């Protein structure tokens, strides 16, 4: 394989050529209610070629890797067409040439676990969810594992082979006490680790079921403006979705007005706000030792002491904006060209305890875990899985239908307390951008307190 890739690059007429070949083996176990919906082991082999010719990008994706040389020609052909229509040629920031092999080191390698054993484990969690209460009507329990071997080579001499493991577990219980009251509780796990991540989750399953049942009797939050405390899970999703995507340079590198908003040195939060994207922390899903342009990982401060420090870059955006590539050009698979993505993104710990953060709130909302979220420039919206009323500094009644919305910049400025309890979550989903979903990422935060947040509701 190595020889064929090098020959194809050698034979290329493009100014820059890169090849990524990916081999994947994955399995899935899925239970819905009392049925085993899917039991699967699949394999995949595919490749992508990306060429720059006269400053235009051409891309070719294929499964038949014997066609590699032809695909390099095809990518070069369409790249020329792009160059013909675009007077602004693309150039790439210089990066070191790398030749390396990155092996995965799994404690309990999921490739050595039989499909039968995976099935038994997931079935046992499903049984816990189903039998927790007679008000549990359905479940969604999904286990996935994937082991990818990704070979990256470019015409500058970089040649990297990386092993990328990923394992997720989703435990969802659905409770109902009538057609108009259907609630769910969930727990999710995701790591670049071994089978141990999926083991010993009985208590988590029981918690998910209990929460679904508790939510049946929870009160809907009343719409309005509140002082809100986000738990580490929801705060992590907030910083990833609402702020992190704003720092992805491909979103603004050709847009002067947006780039101006995101100028380094701009004050975005109070002095104790620090936001980081870190390319490698052992076991985390977002780990990207080398990105899909062959650039090594970094620990990048997006916000340092409340001030915008850096953006996340690919080689193209870094070159255009006079910055250094940060190792954030990622693709979900061989079907896609890399785009600027986050890896492991978090708010650094502050020094407040949760009880101190609660203390001076007369009437607020404690919002827990993210159910979903979306952003559009500075507007964002998130739904919490559940919440609690805060009355006179104490947690009160459980709340449902907690959907938060706001303006990113106002909200960052309104973070007035940061907890001392940073926690990171990989989750079982992933990040979506530009048609590429799900990309394994991790996000996290300590508890954070925000003033004047709009919560939707009836």
């Amino acid at each position: 394989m190595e020889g064929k890739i090098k020959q194809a690059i050698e034979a290329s007429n493009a100014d820059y050529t890169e090849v990524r070949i990916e081999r994947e083996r994955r399995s899935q176990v899925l239970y819905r209610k009392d049925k085993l919906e899917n039991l699967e082991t699949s394999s995949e082999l595919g490749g992508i070629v990306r060429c720059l010719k006269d400053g235009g990008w051409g891309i070719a994706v294929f499964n038949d890797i014997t066609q590699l040389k032809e695909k390099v020609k095809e990518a070069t052909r369409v790249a020329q067409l792009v160059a013909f229509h675009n007077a602004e040629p693309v150039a790439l920031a210089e990066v070191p040439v790398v030749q390396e092999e990155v092996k995965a080191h799994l404690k309990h390698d999921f490739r050595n676990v039989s499909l039968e054993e995976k099935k038994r484990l997931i079935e046992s969690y499903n049984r816990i969810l189903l039998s927790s209460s007679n008000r549990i009507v359905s479940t969604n329990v999904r286990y996935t594992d994937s082991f990818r071997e990704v070979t990256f080579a470019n015409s500058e001499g970089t040649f990297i082979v990386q092993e990328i493991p990923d394992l997720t577990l989703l435990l969802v219980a659905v409770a109902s006490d009538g057609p108009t009251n259907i609630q769910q509780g969930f727990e999710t796990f995701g790591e670049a680790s071994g089978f141990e991540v999926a083991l010993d989750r009985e208590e988590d399953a029981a918690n998910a079921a209990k929460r679904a049942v508790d939510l049946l009797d929870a009160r809907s939050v009343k719409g309005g403006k509140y002082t809100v405390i986000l738990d580490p899970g929801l705060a992590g999703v907030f910083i990833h979705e609402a702020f992190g995507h704003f720092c992805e340079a491909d979103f603004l590198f050709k847009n002067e007005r947006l780039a101006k908003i995101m100028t380094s040195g701009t004050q975005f939060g109070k002095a104790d706000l620090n936001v980081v994207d870190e390319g490698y922390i052992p076991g985390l899903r977002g780990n990207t030792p080398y990105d899909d342009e062959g650039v090594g990982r970094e620990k990048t401060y997006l916000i340092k002491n409340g001030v915008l420090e850096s953006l996340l870059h690919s080689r193209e955006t870094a070159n255009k904006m006079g910055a250094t590539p940060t190792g954030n050009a990622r693709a979900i698979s061989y079907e896609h060209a890399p785009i600027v993505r986050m890896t492991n993104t978090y708010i650094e710990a502050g020094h407040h305890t949760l009880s101190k953060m609660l203390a001076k709130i007369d009437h607020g909302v404690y919002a827990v875990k993210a159910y979903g979220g979306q952003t559009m420039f500075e507007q964002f919206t998130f739904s919490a899985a559940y919440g609690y009323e805060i009355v006179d500094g104490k947690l009160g009644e459980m709340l449902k239908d907690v959907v938060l919305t706001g303006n990113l910049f106002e909200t960052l400025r309104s973070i007035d307390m940061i907890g001392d309890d940073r926690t990171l979550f990989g989750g079982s989903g992933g990040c979506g951008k530009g048609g590429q979903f799900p990309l394994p990422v991790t996000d996290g935060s300590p508890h954070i307190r925000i003033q004047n947040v709009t919560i939707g509701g009836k």
Partner: protein
Amino acid sequence: MGALLETLDGKVDQAELFHLCSRTTPIEFRSGKLESIKDKQIEGVALRVIDNGRLGFATTTDVNDLSGLIDAAIAAAAFGEEVSFTFPSKRENETPQVYDASVANVSEEALVEIGEEAIAQIRTADSQAEINLSIAKSVEKVAIENTSGLKLEEERTTVFLSIEVEKAREGDIFLLSDEAQVRHLEDLKPGELVDRLEEQLRLGKTIVPAPSRKLPVVFTPNGAIALLLPLIVGFNGKSVYLGTSPLKGRIGDTVLDPRLSIADDGTFFKGPRSGAFDDEGTPTFRTALVTEGVLQGFLYDLRTAALAGAKPTGNGYKGGLWGSGGFRSLPGVGMGNVIVGEGATPQARIITGIEEGLLVEAVLGLGQGNIASGEFSNNVAVAFKIEDGKIVGRVKNTMIAGNTYNLLKDHLIALSDSARWVHGTLNTPAIAVDAVSVVGPPG
């Protein structure tokens, strides 16, 4: 491929082979300039086997060595779920005209020119707007064979155009987008997208405060997805079987306003999601879901139909509820083309009749809120304020919330008289409802 099924015949109870070959050419413009052209050629196969009554599944991209695929599927079936359905045998179904040779033949150059022209038109109306545009053509061949003797093949073409316009000013960024997905090249009308975007740019120049109370809301066809999504989830035979659909057990009941009729139609002529058969080889149908407010039925794939004792409706799609396709996933219940019947009032006249309310074109956070119960709760992405029957400006940072079942049964104001395709799967008119909870920004 046929040889593979012969190998399996007699070895297992049943087998089905799904074979996809697709070639897609996405062309991307960023900030008004051509950025990249991609040629994506994908081939993959998926095998379902039922062995001793148990289901196993595997997929691969290695079409030259299928023995690994067979082994994986049979190994999974050893511990798989017991299933009681039978793969369909040959049935005739007319093709809904989903292949257009001119899509297959159109050059990248010609598509680039369509994109450049649309960008130039928007620039004429607003020279400051930043424009991102994607145009793609796709030709895919789906072949399904099974041990019931079925052998089907269909070629389908798609042209997809999406335009995103962004207007940034001091303290405000206004992002709007529109898209079209058609089977035939001649049905691509970039000018219509451009006109709609220009109209919104014009209406959105002024920002006005949003109130916080219950108000009438007019959902444009594009915005109507917020209202219709909980319903679409509720029509899914899987939700009904799982007991998570509020529509369970209510066939024959009046569940919506009598002016509302909704159908799923996989046979729709040139429909963006149409095909002669679904991803399990079941012929597609037109399935009435709600007729004049009365619930008629639900959507089923083979497996859910067998569990629920219902008839498969030709809604077994790969890639989830939205049927995003590919070869990888197991088929499940997905939508064909969802068709919401038109009303009698032009959208402009519906607006004229509203004293105070919102016109919602797009929302953020689709699927947020407890959609199983019919609840939606979204931030408006593109919405305008209506005062005394006139649009007075754009509202920002505003939430809308309500219960679809409640709003569409007891609070329907009107349906507009012209439906259009939105989100590549839905054909709907504008829908106006009363009593939507609106929460404006702090101020």
